[in-house]
């Protein structure tokens, strides 16, 4: 029973399920369509609230039509609607009507990362003295624990600028160069940054490597990488939660 009912909700070409009727056993018609509409509209709204910049770029009418295709193909896997839409960036890479907007999937990845960062676990910042107290000989092997909300998105497109242009009052012109976007939520607000290649490499590497290795990788990516400056900035932003 529920299989037939559920399938029909996502496929408007299927008939009303057996036994589903209106008063006096007459055809259910529009009554069953209420459920069809509720499902597609509520999932479309959930997607729109997760991807406001995508909606701004393509326009509401187009977004709703595209979301209608997406939500029928990829209904949520869990009842946690706060995370719904994780398949959307990949969907955009294969949706022919937006293939001319090559940057669109990466903008969507940035929006997805923003939401994941918003709901990420909380963590208290590490007291700055902990860095100063580190024995100089052990600095290379020290482990820097980063805030769980940090996300780094690399793109062939200037997606940090595209995001900023469409989400803030900052209408600086968008260049052509590729950009890295760093997203974090040290306290209540999601913070968006455009880190250098060295900083991004340093942060990515710290997830697995001791500080010295991360520093070497960062310098390979950006010869003038400034270790002390980066550590101070991460510490004061509350993005380092422990040093061991």
């Amino acid at each position, binding site marked *: 029973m*529920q299989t037939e009912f*559920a399938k029909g909700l996502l496929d408007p070409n299927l008939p009303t399920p057996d036994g589903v009727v*209106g*008063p006096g056993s007459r055809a259910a018609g529009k*009554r069953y369509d209420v459920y069809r509409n509720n*499902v597609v509209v509520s999932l479309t709204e959930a997607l729109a609230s997760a991807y406001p910049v995508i909606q701004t770029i393509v326009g509401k009418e187009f977004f709703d039509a595209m979301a209608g295709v997406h939500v029928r193909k990829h209904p949520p*896997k869990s009842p946690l609607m706060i995370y719904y839409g994780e398949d959307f960036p990949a969907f955009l890479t294969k949706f022919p009507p937006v293939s001319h907007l090559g940057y669109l999937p990466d903008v969507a990845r940035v929006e997805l990362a923003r939401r994941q960062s*918003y*709901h*990420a676990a909380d963590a208290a910042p590490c007291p700055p003295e902990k860095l100063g107290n580190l024995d100089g000989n052990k600095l290379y092997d020290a482990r820097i624990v980063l805030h769980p909300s940090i996300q780094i998105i690399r793109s062939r497109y200037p997606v940090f600028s595209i995001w900023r242009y469409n989400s803030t009052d900052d209408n600086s012109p968008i260049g052509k160069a590729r950009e890295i976007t760093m997203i974090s939520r040290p306290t209540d607000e999601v913070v968006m940054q455009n880190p250098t290649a060295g900083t991004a490499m340093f942060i990515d590497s710290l997830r697995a490597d001791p500080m010295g290795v991360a520093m070497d990788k960062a310098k390979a990516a950006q010869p003038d990488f400034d270790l002390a400056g980066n550590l101070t900035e991460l510490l004061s932003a509350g993005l380092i939660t422990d040093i061991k």
Partner: protein
Amino acid sequence: MSYITNTIPARAGVGYKPKHLDEILAEPDAVGWLEIHAENYMGDGGPQLAQLRYLRERFPISCHGVGLSIGSDGPLDKEHLARLKKLVDWLNPALFSEHLAWSTHDIGFLNDLLPAPYTRETLNNVVDHIDQVQETIGRQMLLENPSVYVMFEQSTMSEIEFLNEVVRRTGCGLLLDVNNIFVSNTNQQTSPEEYLSAFPIAHIGEVHLGGHDEQTDDFGDPLLIDSHNAPVVDPVWNLYETLIKRTGALPTLIEWDNDIPDWPVLANEVRLAAAILNRQNKAA
């Protein structure tokens, strides 16, 4: 087995929306309690959870699930039950409620409260699922009567008979949504007053009031949609007052989830419910 039962006060409360935080805190006595949707607070961290930790120190909190899919013909999602247990354990809500509906199937979570036929088979599933929820969270839960738009030829009992059996077999309480009574009975061309007079009122732990949208079906007959996007209509207030005269004051929630209005509009609905509760308290 005995479970922790409902401790929400018999006052008017409101479905909490973050945009109303400042106004609610500015006049905390205006609302007796707050209701939250469980699934919105199942993330790992962040400002929403911080807000709820703050609010739970100041208001009784009712935790209303929208994703368990109690009416599913398949098993409950174990991961989701574990998430609910985690939330209930730290939040320690004054009550937990869910819907007589299903929303999860093999194809995914459909984000709507879908109806099931009232049969022995559905009854057995619902009873098993409520047992499982109550065992998991160690509390009595309330089950909410649905808004329905269709009927099932497969049904072999009425909604009231179905709810009576569920209560008898699980020991759960009931959340009576008065707007849902009006919506479902209008849609089925039956009498909301008769439904209310047959309802097992002794088991009501909470009342919901909300707005609906009016459409028509293919035959030009009214088709009401439980949209939670409008003020409570007069016939629903009348049903509510009839109920409260019989039961005495009950915890009563104003639900407004879509096209969320500014606080004064919502606060006015809360005052209207509070006025009916106060009248009853004085009469009693």
